[in-house]
């Protein structure tokens, strides 16, 4: 109630007038009433009433917060957080090595950034995650939907169809191996068409469209409450050309990061961003570093860097609050993102995948 007038979310012109008239606290405003206010500062009665309603709402929110109720800021103990985190699901990537180093998979309510050179598999992982987020809970998934914001035009529907088909087949196999009653029901709705219709795609051509889309995201997520994954494929691309004012770029990116964190927390969704690599020219040599600058590095909670070692693709967990830094190998197969298969010729496991896997470059390939 002792809140100063200057801190209330009123229009600046109105605030200036109130200050000029000598009002200092919110309580004074409430005591004056709409008619008195309108006469004193020379505004219409309706405007005065509107202003008072805003003030009342703010003060009510303040007192509620002071009393320890739910407000804009949440207070809870670490024990409550621990319980929440333990029951929270992960979005698996189908590459068990990657899931292990991430501590179970891509975490909900956190921002994960994937950096890498072109062609290394960032978009593949994003498409894999957009399918995996929909795995029903009885199979260990989070049964959510996905939003895919594409800025580079690299989203390929045919590839998603392949990945989805492989995922559905995998679930069918699990259901056959260990039949449980939930499995049958879940499998009825878990089909390729269903998976595709729950991936919401937005094609943003420049950073204005991207900003607009992120502003509208809370509204969209409120309508589609089952969304558990937001992928922005190529957050670097729209910000890397036509930007003379780097200070503006940093500010916009920080704003974007903050909004994504808020969205991730409020809707319990995972946010996955992909970034490009850029060449940093040093004194004597140049290195490849993630694009968008140093300050962007702080935006993501978890950072993965994908790179090559001769012909093997590797993923390094570069930044994580709870897991240690480590590197694993992965593969991109016709079925999607997978572990590296050992070269031994055992036919028992994985005998269900008839398509040939990626082979090293030096061998002669035969067409299928």
């Amino acid at each position, binding site marked *: 109630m002792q809140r100063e007038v200057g801190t209330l*979310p009123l229009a600046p012109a109105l605030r200036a007038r109130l200050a000029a008239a000598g009002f200092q606290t919110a309580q004074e405003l409430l005591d004056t009433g709409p008619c008195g206010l309108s006469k004193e500062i020379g505004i219409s009665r309706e405007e005065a009433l509107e202003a008072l309603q805003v003030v009342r709402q703010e003060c009510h929110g303040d007192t509620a917060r002071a009393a320890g109720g739910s407000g804009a800021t949440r207070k809870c103990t670490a024990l409550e957080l621990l319980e929440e985190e333990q029951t929270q699901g992960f979005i698996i990537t189908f590459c068990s090595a990657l899931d292990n180093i991430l501590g179970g998979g891509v975490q909900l309510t956190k921002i994960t950034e994937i950096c890498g050179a072109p062609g290394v598999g960032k978009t*593949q992982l994003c498409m894999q995650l957009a399918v995996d987020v929909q795995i029903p809970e009885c199979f260990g998934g989070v049964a959510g939907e996905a939003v895919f914001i594409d800025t580079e035009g690299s989203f390929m529907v045919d590839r998603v169809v392949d990945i989805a088909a492989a995922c559905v087949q995998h679930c069918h196999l699990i259901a056959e191996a260990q039949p449980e009653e939930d499995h049958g029901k879940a499998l009825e709705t878990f089909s390729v068409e269903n998976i595709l219709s729950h991936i*919401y795609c937005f094609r943003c051509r420049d950073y204005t469209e991207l900003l607009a889309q992120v502003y509208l995201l809370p509204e969209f997520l409120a309508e589609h409450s089952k969304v558990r994954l937001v992928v922005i494929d190529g957050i670097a691309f729209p910000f890397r050309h036509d930007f003379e004012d780097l200070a503006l770029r940093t500010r916009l990116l920080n704003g974007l990061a903050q909004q994504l964190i808020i969205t991730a927390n409020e809707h319990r969704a995972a946010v996955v961003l992909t970034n490009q690599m850029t060449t940093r020219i040093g004194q004597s040599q140049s290195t490849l570093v993630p694009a968008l600058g140093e300050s962007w590095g702080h935006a993501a909670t978890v950072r993965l860097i994908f790179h090559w070692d001769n012909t093997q693709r590797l993923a390094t967990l570069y930044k994580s609050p709870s897991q240690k830094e480590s590197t694993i190998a992965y593969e991109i197969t016709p079925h999607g993102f997978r572990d590296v298969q050992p070269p031994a010729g055992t036919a028992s496991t994985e005998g269900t995948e008839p398509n040939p896997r990626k082979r090293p470059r030096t061998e002669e390939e035969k067409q299928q």
Partner: protein
Amino acid sequence: MAAKKLRRAQLSQEMCERLSRYQITTCQDFLCLSLLELMKVTGQSYHEVQKLLCKVSRACAPKMQTAYEMKLRKSVNPSSAFLSTTLHSLDRVLHGGVPCGSLTEITSPPGCGKTQFCIMLSVLATLPVSMGGLDGAVIYIDTESAFSAERLIEIAANRFPAYYDSDEKLLCMTRSIHLYRELTCCSVLKRIMSLEEDIILKKVKLVIIDSVASVVRKEFDTKLQGNLAERSNFLNRGASVLKYLAEEFTIPVILTNQITTALSSGPGLRADLVSPADDLSLSEGSSVSGKRDSGYVTAALGNTWSHSVNTRLILQYHDLPTRQPLRVSAAITKMLRVRSSDTNTAS
């Protein structure tokens, strides 16, 4: 979309006038401001400004499609999703041919056959759909003056003798290939910007730029300070306009690139961050040893450009006289080798 005036975002007239006093006339200007700045500029309360922000965002934001709708749209018209190259093994690897709606890059050492490949694709694009073509015109932007009209007619006559059986048909075909000779980066960019109208006017179904690398490398010397950034800027702008055109009209866009050697001793890149598919020295038949520490051969125009193209085809000499396109894609990664013999008919 960014340059959309606020008037068209359904903001009230007086609000637009007020904002224009602060030089905020487009949606882009509006969305770049923070909430406090917007409050100051519009003179509205916090909640009102949030509502305005949503209004303006709605005017700029892209339309939502589910992946299912995208698939349905594609399956309705399957023949128009690819331009078949008539090299069967290559088509198989590419899942049908050169994809429509995205950028495809063809890169190779000099003399491998990039321009020949482009000329052949131009002929294919003018064929009717029943023969596997796109039944449309072609825009060919030539920066090296390498396009030869006689070779075009030779290829057409030898490859499809049944279809091009009369001079008249050949001339008709040549009339639908529009050649632009651009010799500077600036003019190439201007030409790319003006393509949208030409595509609609002339019913174009294929855009070829041969070659991006020659004009860029001529003008930008990356050893000079500031040139690397300017070059990236130019390439990114060009790439985003071309992507927009490719997607909007669902046509293939083909670009050709050159090969460069990156030495590790000088300012080089960490070898593990460059895709081994881009490293041509690792393939069979090359004289450079497989050790990547000593430097490697890769497509020109840098890292940023590699992010912009969707599909990359690398042509190489395997052993004379066959030329061998080795396919590498940034989107669907499968590294497979395909043989092609470069005969008179460029088949």
